[in-house]
């Protein structure tokens, strides 16, 4: 059975399901039991599963992470949450030197089944320290898995899968997705980690995307369809490990590749994908691949600057038409219903 729900509600459903399935699943972090419940994603958990399993924590990110690791070594499955990815940066020691290493370093005896939910901010003046997309950083650390669902169904399926995975998983939620809606399978629905989703099939070009960029890719592809251009969209869903076979297969078909990344350009997941595709599919490509990512700058706070900072679906359209060398009337823009710094006109700030 399918149910229409928001991305945030899908996460909430997955949390309820996981905690019901396994009494060892814990949920903690700043504000998980406060009146706003992390944008609704932890609502009802404490009422149902009690303060022993669902609890607030002090502003101590590094210690919280270590505490989660310790509990996981003894058989628990902690799900920790941070309202912004940027706050979690205080915990790099525990993440990189402990969580990511424990299983390997101690000869494969004990693993660290933790999930760290990180929310990525954007727009409404979030500015340099509330908007960082550091998936490439995390992916660079052997031992970590990094998932970035774009749809409500994937949010549910991947969160459940992450919680029951025996390794540390970073679960990255884009703030602009929390209120998006979609059909979500009910019950214990799982989406395998490391498996991409073909969002739409196409012939002319392959768009590989992740998280919120998948939404932009869909907008661009729907628009171009009316111009007679057929895009194949692969939503990575997991950025570590990457589903290479899905990308290879698509590139073999379209022979052209654009990778969309929510992070900054240099050292990006997009760069990694293009490197590997060039190495392994060089003779197949009929055009040099392109990556569309953020400039190598922090997000500026100003409304007047973010418009030029974030690639829009229009920049994607431009990237595609220029790769295909088709003329495209740029005065006909892709519909953009709201101001550029908000996900929808329901958003009135401040966070």
């Amino acid at each position: 059975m399918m149910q229409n729900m928001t991305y945030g509600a899908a996460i909430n459903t997955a949390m309820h399901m996981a905690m019901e399935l396994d009494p060892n699943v814990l949920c903690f972090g700043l504000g998980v039991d406060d009146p706003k419940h992390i944008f609704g994603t932890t609502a009802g958990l404490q009422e149902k599963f009690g303060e022993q399993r669902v609890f607030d924590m002090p502003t101590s990110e590094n210690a919280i992470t270590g505490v989660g690791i310790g509990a996981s070594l003894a058989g628990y499955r902690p799900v920790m949450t941070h309202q912004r990815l940027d706050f979690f940066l205080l915990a790099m020691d525990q993440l990189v030197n402990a969580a990511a290493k424990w299983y390997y370093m101690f000869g494969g005896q004990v693993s660290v089944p933790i999930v760290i939910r990180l929310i990525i901010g954007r727009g409404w003046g979030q500015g340099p320290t509330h908007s960082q997309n550091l998936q490439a950083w995390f992916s660079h650390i052997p031992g970590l898995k990094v998932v970035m669902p774009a749809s409500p169904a994937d949010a549910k399926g991947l969160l459940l899968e992450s919680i029951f995975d025996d390794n540390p998983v970073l679960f990255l939620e884009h703030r602009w997705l929390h209120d998006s809606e979609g059909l979500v399978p009910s019950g214990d629905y799982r989406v395998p980690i490391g498996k991409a989703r073909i969002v739409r099939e196409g012939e002319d070009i392959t768009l590989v995307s992740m998280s919120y960029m998948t939404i932009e890719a869909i907008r661009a592809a729907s628009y171009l369809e009316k111009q007679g251009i057929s895009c194949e969209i692969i939503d990575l869903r997991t950025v570590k490990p990457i589903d290479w076979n899905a990308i290879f297969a698509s590139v073999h078909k379209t022979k052209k590749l654009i990778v969309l990344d929510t992070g900054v350009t240099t050292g990006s997941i997009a760069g990694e994908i293009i490197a590997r595709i060039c190495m392994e599919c060089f003779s197949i490509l009929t055009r040099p691949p392109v990556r569309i990512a953020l400039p190598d700058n922090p997000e500026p706070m100003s409304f007047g600057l973010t418009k030029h900072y974030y690639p829009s679906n229009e920049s994607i359209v431009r990237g595609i038409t220029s790769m295909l060398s088709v003329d495209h009337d740029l005065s006909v823009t892709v519909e953009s219903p709201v101001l550029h710094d908000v996900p929808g006109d329901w958003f009135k700030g401040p966070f």
Partner: protein
Amino acid sequence: MRNNIDIEMDLFYTMLRIRKVEEAIADRYKEQKMRTPVHLSIGQESVAAVVGRQLYHEDYCVSTHRAHAHYLAKGGSLQAMISEIYGKVTGCCRGRGGSMHLIDTAVGFMGSTAIVGNTIPIGVGLGLSLKLAGHGKVSCIFLGDGAVEEGVFYESLNIAVLKKLPVLFVCENNRYSVYSPFSKRQPAERKIYEIAKAMGATIYHGDGYDVLASHDVARCAIASIREGGGPCFLEFETYRWREHCGPNYDNDLGYRTENEFLSWKARDPLEVFRVYLVGKCRVSKQVIKKMEEDVDQEIEVAFELAETAPFPKPIEAVTGEYKSTEANLNCSTYKGELTT
């Protein structure tokens, strides 16, 4: 000489100005032109005012996400702050930082940042520079009760004590971190100042709503630091009136009671001080009225300038990574057509 009338008028002026600025931001936030999270200091003006009164422009100061009051009390430009919140090129960070990132180096306000605990060691480092230069200046670090939960607080305080640095830690204990009351984060009987004492700092603790007593505390502490006495840690009890982030009241959420809020509001330091000045000190109501009008006027101008100022040029969105222009050009990955 104890708290003469000039100092008292000054303290009142600073509190009044901060209150009015913050209320103006709150009133206009719904216009949707200040498109950035704002953490208002309404209810917490007095601590900023008494500490700011004892600092010179040559002293340093760093702060947190809730920095408007600290910035203004240290002498930061009001126009540059309001313009920053509007994201304009005339803002104190050229529109790159917003409300949570303020700076005015001309008056020694060296930066406020949005990551809890982030500026604590930086303030200690500024203190190190002052000790090396040896001029009896002070580096002041504002922090909240939540920041004490970060490891970096202890590491920084230890270094300040160990090196006997001229650092003033000002902890504004407003009992909450977002919607989490103190007792959910630290043992309810915990006294933060006792931790600082155990670590070797000179400590003072007081009711932030008692303006004159708090001012005495700030004066003594800062004087002792200037004389080479090493770091002081001040903890002031205070209270945030509005929501954690944003322009509204939020007592309806249920994480604290309306009565708790009202009990603090009833002791509003600004109003208590106004009554004190008019009653005890015989300051004429006209003088205060004039002061209020001047502040209103100044705020009006600051908003007017912010609204009419231009946004930064688009190119600023994709450049400025490094200090040297050449390095920026070499490194820029931007391929678009934005003009300079």
